[in-house]
């Protein structure tokens, strides 16, 4: 399915909420400018140094040196210009060439939400690009420029990184590069391999797979769609959109491994449709109700009230499992529950009727308790339609 640019606004993932203005965070106001301003200084510094290094290396090492590594990689990075410019949203992002025929892998975002997306190569050539397709779940899109014989990344030759791997991030963050200027290069190491889905509700992104967390200030406005390579220019991943960890209030610098994306990219290139994200599918048919299990928790006073057991109904599944007043519930089915608020959230998204394994603290001890729910027979009045009176 070819999704045309002007249809993007109807796609749920295209709403700009994930790319919202970075200063609007109601949480710590002070940190953000620091975290942003400094990377700019560093990045600008690296731009200067990049050229100095390259020039120096050319003299001493020749075409096999880092000069050619960077130059080869830079020629595969493009600047993408599209919609935006309002409410602090930037009208640009980054992308990378993935076929000699002009296919560009980039981030799926509001920037593409226009009929005229412009792709600018590192030599200054400009192309009006068409949207070939997108996968909102992975937040990626493929564009096509009318061109031939372009330098490009070979996705099948992409490599895997691990913790400590030295990496280069190439992107047009903050839109510093224009025209025939090359993208900004940043360096760092892979800080961790992490799974966004392992942290329920912590990241507001549809992507649920694994990411390279980067030890560099890479994910700033305009960087999404840029390339992450190892120190020899071999492709590792694509830089994601700005993302804040809602449990620690930290901005995450990350890239999605190419191996997570390759099937989707192949589908898009082959013209196959990609599924849309569906929130409804994740909602349970019947949400978990603790009171129904005979478990009553303390009243919710603040958003951080710990989930203590207030009382246990006699002869209920909770009583049979051995729960007692003043137990503190720590984990449900392996998931940490830090407050009553989180407990309610968890219940809302958990299917009722299954076995519940709880880790509780009683005194100074941790206990694992399993609750086997009773099969509740639906009452006759509910299961049968009411008689229709004439």
């Amino acid at each position, binding site marked *: 399915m070819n999704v045309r640019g002007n249809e993007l606004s109807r796609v749920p993932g295209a709403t700009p909420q994930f790319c919202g203005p970075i200063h609007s965070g109601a949480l710590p106001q002070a*940190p953000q400018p*620091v975290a942003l301003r400094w990377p700019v200084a560093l990045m600008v510094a690296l731009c*200067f140094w990049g050229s100095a290094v390259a020039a120096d290396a050319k003299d001493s*090492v020749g075409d096999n040196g880092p000069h050619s590594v*960077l130059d080869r990689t830079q020629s595969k990075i493009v600047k993408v210009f599209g919609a935006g410019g309002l409410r602090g949203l930037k009208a640009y992002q980054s992308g990378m060439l993935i076929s000699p025929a002009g296919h560009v892998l980039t981030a799926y975002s509001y920037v593409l939400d226009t009929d005229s997306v412009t792709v600018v190569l590192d030599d200054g050539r400009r192309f009006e690009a068409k949207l070939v397709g997108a996968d909102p779940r992975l937040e990626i899109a493929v564009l096509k420029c009318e061109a031939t014989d372009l330098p490009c990344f070979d996705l099948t030759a992409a490599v895997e990184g691990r913790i400590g791997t030295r990496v280069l991030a190439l992107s047009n963050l903050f839109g510093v590069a224009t025209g025939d200027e090359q993208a900004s290069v940043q360096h760092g190491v892979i800080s*961790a391999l992490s799974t966004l889905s392992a942290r329920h509700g912590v990241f507001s992104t549809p992507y649920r797979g694994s990411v390279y967390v980067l030890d560099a200030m890479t994910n700033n406005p305009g960087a999404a769609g840029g390339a992450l390579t190892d120190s020899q220019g071999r492709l590792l991943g694509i830089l994601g959109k700005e993302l804040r960890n809602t449990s620690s209030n930290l901005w995450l610098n990350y890239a999605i491994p190419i191996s997570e994306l390759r099937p989707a990219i192949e589908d898009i290139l082959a013209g196959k449709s990609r599924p849309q994200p569906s929130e409804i599918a994740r909602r349970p048919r019947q949400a978990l109700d603790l009171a129904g299990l005979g478990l009553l928790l303390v009243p919710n006073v603040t958003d951080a009230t*710990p989930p203590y057991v207030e009382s246990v109904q006699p002869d209920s599944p909770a009583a049979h499992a051995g729960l007692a007043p003043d137990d503190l519930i720590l984990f449900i089915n392996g998931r940490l529950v830090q407050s009553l608020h989180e407990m309610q959230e968890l219940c809302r998204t958990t299917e009722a009727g299954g076995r519940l394994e709880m*880790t509780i603290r009683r005194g100074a001890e941790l206990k694992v308790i399993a609750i086997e729910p009773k099969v509740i027979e639906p009452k006759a009045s509910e299961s049968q339609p009411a008689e229709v009176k004439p």
Partner: protein
Amino acid sequence: MTTLLQNRNSTQRRGCLGQRPSSGALPQAPNALASRNEPVKNRSFLMAVAAALAIVVASWMSTATALEDTPGAREEDAVRAAVDRVAPSVVRIQTVGGMETVDGVLQGSGPSTGLIISADGYIVSSAYNFARRPTAILVTLGKRGNIPAKLVAADHSRALVLLKIDPVPEDGELVVPEPAPASEVRPGAWAIAVGRTLDEKGPNISVGIVSAVGRIWGKALQTDAKISPANYGGPLVDLRGRVLGVLVPMSPMAGGETAGAEWYDSGIGFAVPLADVQRVLPDLRKGKNLETGLMGVSLKGRDMFAAEPIIAACPPGSPAYEAGARPGDKIVAINGRSVVNQAQMRHQIGPLYAGDKVRLTVLRDKREVVLTFSLTDKLPPFEHPFLGILPLHGAADEPGVAIRYVYPDSPAAKAGIKAGDRLLEIESQPLANVAAARDALNTLAPEQKIALLVARGAEKLKLTANLGHLPTDIPGELPPARKAVADAKKPGSGKLTAGKTTDIKLPELTNKCFAYVPTQSAPPVAYGVLVWLGPGDVFDRERTLKQWQAMCDAQGLILLVPQPREGKRWQPDDIDFIVRALERLDKTYDVDADRIVAVGHQGGGAAALLLALTRPGLLSGAAACDAALPASVRPEPIEPTQRLALLLAHGPTGPAAESLAPQIARLRELKYPVTEMKLPQAGRFLNEAEQGELARWVDSLDRL
């Protein structure tokens, strides 16, 4: 930028030729660059850090060839090996419950990191992670899963906590990391920050170098690795996986659990050396909380790098006073190490805890006196004494203090002092000027009986006064503050042409700001400053001038009107701007440091109080209308050398009035002179009559 460009040629050569990092240490260049600029919030320092990083890239890029066995690849392997080595000692900590906000800031609740410090179950972490006072703490140990832990003790000086897990796993399961020998901790060496928050299975790392040692007054080492809640509490290790220190947020300017967190991921991070943690471990294990050690002396002079450590005040009850220290003593050595300025003295005292013994060598009457005493964690609140006079402004042509006004029923009035007199001596000390009189009074206390020498015409009178307490009532009509009253402008007669307004722009700061400088009649006297911080809504220069011009003309005050940087709301960042704008004024005009006052309404009022209480010594008064102290401000006891009066105007209801009552009680406990002005309704600013009272309060702040 210029710093970078100027250094470009020389550093580039260093980075690319020969001096590649080989044995775990970088070339000296980064250190030389970083340490040249001392103040941390310095632009050129930033650029130096950037340049230092650029060198790392340069040296690395030039080694990145197709071969796997390159210095770059070997470094990568070394980093991994170091992380692998320390990883078993780095644990994940999760908490349940606790407060939502700390210091008014919503706290994150994500997992945090701890470092195993003994095989019998003790774990050290950053206090930041426990600022929420969680109900339950869980430590995740690789094979064992979650184990409950208790908070055993806290080190408030170094922002650390000690946890104990129970049950303790069997022998050998808890791996205690190897510390890096202190002699090998050098700026320029690789430093890897290790946390265990991002991935449930493995650690997360950030690679940098040791930027400096002995930071935060000798308490921490500094690194350019990215330090944040992702690794607070985890170790900073060298290239061999030996622990350099425990990562904590810290700030040279402020204390507390969350101070310094605003520098997260900035390239400025801190770690408490592991050796220092181990030294206090026995105390912490016993459950003893450790506090910063205090001597209880105030020093003369504000420039800590220029001023000698001469004791300006040393109130009775402080450890130094009880050991025999007295105002006028010059501190020449601490624990046998000589000190020549106040900064060096802070470096010696900074690392010490309450209860630590200190040996102070002071110079008194050209003789060295050695005083030995223990530091304390809490000083009795200091209260300035009150004589009951207002000095005339600009009457420094002869020695002594020309008296403008004597407070009725004050100690001065009871002693028989009259307006027009000249105060020559306090306790037989001749007074050169008003500042000398203030210094003399700062060493005394209320209820003390003192001898005065006063000149009345040709007559000299010896008087005695019983010092009292600073008044919180606003005085009635005051006589003019200067002699040449006939030339001065009458209040209210000033038009825009009376003085001049100038815009104030500061490099790198985007706040808008203007100042109004009243015209002075001859002979000129030093200006006071009135900082007006509006509620932040509509900014109307004409209206603001109309509101304050008469008062500024009458009292010789420069009006400084800054605007919040981000639209309408005042933010803590804006305080920096105001401080720097005041510094700018001080450089351009003759400013009387004893007459700088901030007045604010609503958000601006909170900003005025924030400015006054977080920058002690800057203001002599702060007035806030319809505003309370921001929750993040914990007022510190008054220093004898600093005076700060507060005026809080509020309506009978409203959120400001509610939070003010306990705040006022606390401020009074700390002996701040707090004047409460009760308004009939909340929400509005002062009317004309009330503003007249405010003006008289401002006019009386240089009282003695």
